[in-house]
């Protein structure tokens, strides 16, 4: 017997978003990416933007984001997603253009592209996954890595005297006149996921309304890179990440 024969529509409490396809995800169990992908798929569907949406995937763990959501995608070189998004939106002003970037992509190699796209107030949404580590390459130090945090390239912990401190790039972006929304969210509880969905929706609405650049920073876990169980990673994030990257709006106009 097929499960669908047992579950009646009135009893259905959850279904995979329509825009998410059946490709097997490459993300580690417990990783935040899958949840954020789901949120984006739900928002695109809710806003009826599937035919208008063009996503820009980064280099990093989300390099294959284009495999999971049934919309048109471009895969950018490392850090360059906001440059691609700039051109797409300028050439197709009625389209919904968003980038999906990790902390290395957005806050290290792509700092210039991020800052200047935001400074021009490009009408795009930037979804920024900050898990304080390079996941794809195996757990190296990121610009957002916390002080004293151990990674494969800071084996004795990040020494802020020689390696710099955790880069609060959202705070920098919030200062720019081109930015209409700079907000930090998370996806570690059901309530947090709901809030994230609201903010991603607002970011997409802002982009379509021509209000300027919206950045949604998702403070995330990388339990594999942090070498913890998913549950422990959630606790560690709340305890250690949130004090440095406080949840909430830095700017929302």
């Amino acid at each position: 017997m097929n499960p669908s024969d047992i579950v009646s529509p009135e009893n259905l409490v959850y279904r995979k978003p329509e825009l998410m396809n059946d490709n097997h995800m490459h993300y580690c169990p417990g990783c935040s990416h899958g949840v954020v992908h789901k949120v984006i798929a739900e928002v695109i569907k809710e806003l009826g933007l599937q035919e208008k949406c063009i996503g820009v995937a980064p280099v990093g763990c989300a390099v294959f984001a284009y495999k999971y959501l049934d919309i048109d995608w471009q895969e950018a070189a490392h850090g360059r997603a906001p440059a691609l998004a700039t051109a797409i939106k300028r050439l197709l002003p009625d389209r919904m253009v968003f980038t999906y970037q990790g902390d290395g992509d957005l806050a290290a190699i792509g700092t210039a592209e991020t800052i200047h796209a935001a400074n021009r107030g490009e009408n795009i949404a930037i979804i920024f996954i900050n898990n304080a580590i390079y996941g794809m390459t195996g757990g190296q130090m990121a610009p957002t890595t916390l002080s004293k945090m151990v990674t494969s390239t800071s084996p004795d912990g990040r020494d802020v005297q020689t390696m710099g401190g955790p880069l609060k790039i959202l705070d920098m972006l919030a200062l720019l006149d081109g930015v209409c929304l700079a907000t930090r969210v998370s996806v570690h509880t059901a309530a947090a996921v709901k809030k994230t969905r609201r903010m991603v929706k607002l970011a997409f609405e802002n982009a379509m309304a021509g209000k300027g650049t919206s950045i949604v920073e998702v403070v995330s876990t990388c339990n594999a890179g942090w070498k913890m169980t998913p549950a422990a990673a959630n606790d560690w994030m709340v305890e250690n990440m949130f004090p440095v990257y406080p949840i909430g709006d830095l700017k929302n106009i």
Partner: protein
Amino acid sequence: MSEEISLMKGNEAIAHAAIRYGVDGYFGYPITPQSEIIETLMEEAPWKTTGMVVLQAESEVAAINMVYGGAACGKYSMTTSSSPGISLKQEGISYMAGAELPCLIVNVQRGGPGLGTIQPSQADYFQTVKGGGHGDYKLITLAPNSVQEMADFVALGFELAFKYRNPAMILTDGVIGQMMEKVKLPEFRRRRTNEEVRAQCPWATLGKIPGREPNIITSLELDSALMEKNNERFQAKYRVLEEKEVLYEETQCDDADYLLVAFGSAARICLKTIEMAREEGIKVGLLRPITLWPFPTKVLNRYADKVKGMLTVELNAGQMVEDVRLAVEGKIPVKHYGRLGGIVPTPDNVLDALKEKCFHR
């Protein structure tokens, strides 16, 4: 109606030709000796007329990646720069070759290496035709020798780029970019509608319409077996280009004993050298490659059976000479004469070099 003839710089001709061709987006960053291109575009303000987007990016890196974004939407997208800026664009060019994206890049070369000089040079030949960025790829390369060709090659570059889904480059230099000549600009064409772009470029990311799979533009393929297939597809395309799209110009080659081989501004200088040589009774011709890749290998090989020697004249230390030598397969001596670091030789210099290097006078 009389022909509309204008007098302008090569750089300005590129800008006007781009607007008239119906280019959708220009993304650039100022650098001498080609800043007139973006300045002309900003002055002309085509966003008010054709709807063309003109954007000054924060860097050459950003500019080439904007071109990637525009090209992936099937839009006519272009950037221009000069040697140091073109070095910065190599990452983006490699990615576009890998993602099979058509675009136009203009390199108004200046002397290098490094920051070098702002004076003209042809020292980026190797970078352009041998790779530049990483991976096995080829860049369609056009070398104009006049302001007229600067204007004409905008259309030619986009046509070849879109025909083969490959980046194309106009490789020119500070002489052609800065000098003023008469030019007949192309007729205005209107920009394509999104529906026309969809029809021309079914692969473009314009938004997923019902009934088709998502369009995904990427150069990534982790499965080596598939990545080899991708590379084989690129190579097959390059072989077709080498077969079908070679362009060159022959000047007084029919009765020539010696052949000068030169492109762009160096070829202009050689035209005068031919005159001077023939006044002295030396039968010299000029073969000017117009496409530097694909290179006119076959025609050079044929001339190797007819002439006694060839001299390449280049504003570099000897780059194209290697391709000419490969082409003639050792049948005749091939020498090189070049000036470096932004110095442009005179026709006399070239004639002296011909005598000294080709028949030891």
